């Protein structure tokens, strides 16, 4: 049966790290994206990522970690997010974020729900279920954006497929730490 308390805490703190990183990436993109409607979509989704991070950060404290505690994911995933952050073309940013990173994260959240005892870990389950609802809304809004703004449409579907394959190939993203010597850092 499922994950123990420490493993669930590690998962939640890692999810928080990822959401904070996504928030920061979107924030950095806002001033450097020329297309107004895309800029506004990024600005809106900053708040979504921040709320998700905050919910995970509060839950981390219920699982014996400090309040708003983060744990780094697997180095390969950090590298993928660094690549995401460095993208400058609008179509690449939109495709990488909304076609690859968010759906990939969605799968990881669903996999977490499939792993845990949903009664024992109900508070985390509720948080993730709400986030899944947000992700569906965000992906729907992205489709509306693309219908309106050609620059937001993917120009290189092969590149998107390759980036998606790399994202999917990083599994798991959570690094369970030996808790006696945990060197986790607050963020």
């Amino acid at each position, binding site marked *: 049966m499922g994950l123990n308390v420490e493993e669930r805490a590690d998962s939640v703190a890692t999810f928080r790290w990822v959401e904070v990183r996504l928030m920061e990436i979107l924030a950095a993109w806002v001033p*450097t994206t*020329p297309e107004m409607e895309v800029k506004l979509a990024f600005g809106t989704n900053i*708040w979504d990522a*921040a709320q998700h991070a905050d919910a995970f950060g509060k839950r981390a404290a219920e699982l014996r970690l400090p309040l708003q505690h983060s744990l780094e994911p697997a180095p390969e995933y950090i590298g993928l997010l660094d690549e995401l952050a460095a993208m400058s073309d609008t179509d690449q940013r939109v495709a990488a974020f909304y076609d690859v990173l968010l759906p990939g994260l969605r799968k990881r959240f669903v996999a977490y729900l499939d792993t845990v005892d949903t009664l024992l870990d109900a508070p985390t389950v509720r948080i993730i279920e709400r986030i899944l609802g947000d992700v569906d809304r965000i992906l729907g809004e992205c489709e509306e954006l693309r219908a309106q703004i050609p620059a937001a449409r993917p120009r290189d579907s092969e590149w998107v497929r390759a980036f998606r394959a790399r994202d999917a190939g990083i599994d798991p993203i959570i690094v369970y730490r030996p808790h006696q010597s945990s060197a986790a850092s607050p963020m």
Partner: protein
Amino acid sequence: MSSASSDIRVVRGVPLRCDPAREPCFTVVDDQTEMIRINDDSEASQREKLSVELNSELQSLEIAAQSLSEFPEAPWELRLGLARQCWDEARHARLASRRLIERGGWKGEFPVINQEWGVVCAVDSLLGRLAIQNRTFEAGSLDSSLELLAWWRRLGDDDTADVLEGIHADEVFHVRLANDWIERMTLDNPRAQLEVAAAMIAVKRRLAMLRSGTESRLKVTVPVNTTDRRAAGFTDDEIAELTRRND
């Protein structure tokens, strides 16, 4: 953090952060004298006000986002407040854009200037930015937007006035965010107090240089909005001082 020199440009002797990205449809100017200001009740004047509102909201979004990105060490609750502000400003820009289009305008119809962004984001301190952008510029709009609201209502455009009234309510909380955090972070912290004071002195000097020669067009004194400034965390003494300066 500190801005790289390549991020800074100089206008009228004032170091400004390089402009945020804009689409080619926008004519971006450096000097207030290049802006088109229409001071009558015409349709063009109304669209011009909505264009200014749109670019102002875009800059507010960009400033909050840039600070979120450049100050990762800031307390989480403050970052959360900035993230919320990003969403608010994005909604405000959408509302202004929607209203502009409904009134027959379009993005890029009038020149835009990104001076607030340039001044605020040239400051290397988060407290300094909050003091300038939220506690000064946005607090100033709490005063001026009441007259603008009345202007739209007098022209019979209640839809625009209602939108601006909703935006105004949100802005109170952005000013409050800055006032609360400046108070918390400067309490018993002389270095933080100096940061805020230095940023305010620098911005006053820089704005004076940027506006040199345009005073007759820009210097308009509006009554202090006591109610909303109090709700935004200004003390009675601070409000009294602002009122005294206006007299």
